[in-house]
């Protein structure tokens, strides 16, 4: 099972990103685990300065914006 982490200190766009991943995973029938990381030290530990950031299996794959649905589908099915 894929483990997603959404990095962001609780801004609206971060919540949107987490919801988007959950919705797309559900639509594709894939089970994923989603964790919100709000601790600034942890976020910076991933080298992300512009939030929201997305981490899959400990690798940063996105930063700085709410990803598009197509992009998210790509992550889930990859």
């Amino acid at each position: 099972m894929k483990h997603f982490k959404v990095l962001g200190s609780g801004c609206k766009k971060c919540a949107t990103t987490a919801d988007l991943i959950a919705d797309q995973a559900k639509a594709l029938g894939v089970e994923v685990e989603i964790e919100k990381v709000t601790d600034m030290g942890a976020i910076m530990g991933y080298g992300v300065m512009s939030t929201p950031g997305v981490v899959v299996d400990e690798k940063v794959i996105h930063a700085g914006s709410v990803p598009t649905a197509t992009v998210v589908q790509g992550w889930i099915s990859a």
Partner: protein
Amino acid sequence: MFEIFTRLADWAAYSLLGLAPDTPLGESVHFFIEDITKIFFLLVLIVFAIGMFRSMLTPERVRKVVAGRSRAVSYPMAVGLGAVTPFCSCSSVPLFIGFLEAGIPLGVTMSFLIASPMINEVAVVVLAAAVGWKVALLYVAAGLTVGIVGGLAIEFFKLEKWVEGYVWKIRMGEGVAETPVTSMKQRIDYAWGQVKEIVGRIWIYVFVGIAIGAVLHGFIPQEFFVKYASVDNLLAVPTAVLIGIPLYSNATGVIPIVEALMAKGVPIGTVLALMMSVAAISLPEMIILRKVLKPPLIATFTGILFVAFIGVGYLFNAVLA
């Protein structure tokens, strides 16, 4: 070049709605229609065009470029890149920490944070369309100068002690592997995404700014501004800056107000000082920065900008008004 928007407003306000020109309501509605069509047209056009060419100028890249440079280079670079790098104020905290972690001095980091909300390419083009290129360029020059001076002042006073302790302990990781943008479709998608994100974020400020500008334009008589905001009234500039501090808007959102005030004969220095103050200093921004800065530093930072904006106002009024 923007006459089409004036014509459109003429038609909509006077023919379609049947309002009479030279009445307060007619003037207000005309201003509102002209500005709302013109500014949103420019907004979408510029954000899209810039998105096409600059697929990615991220804070992460700025950090890499500025780190390790001499002060003579890093200060101008920080304000210049601050002006053109898009980032939302909710990213101020990670950006601040990331810069310091890379060894970028506190003063340079603050220069970036001062310049960033004050100047951006959209605001500059819209300002030029509203009140002319001369004013727009003056605004940019003044904004960049204030950014550098503000940062240098913070460095001079050695205010690192007022940065929250935990900030110095954070260590940054490797970061995102960048995916190069190559195809035309990717560029268009990115540019369109930028339009949706930026316009989605700032439209309300622009809308409110246009509404206020329209009311000023139609309903407040010129004599009011001549009486209270002329060059002779030395309190006008500090008052404009004070009014601007608690107000929170995007730089583009202030422009319709700038336009209306200048048309009413308010001197340029006073108007630009107000615009800088609204764009650069705001309560929400201070609350966000409170996570990394102790109150004395926030107070000092606000005080330095307050003095700098007043200086800009007086200088422009003395030289140009």
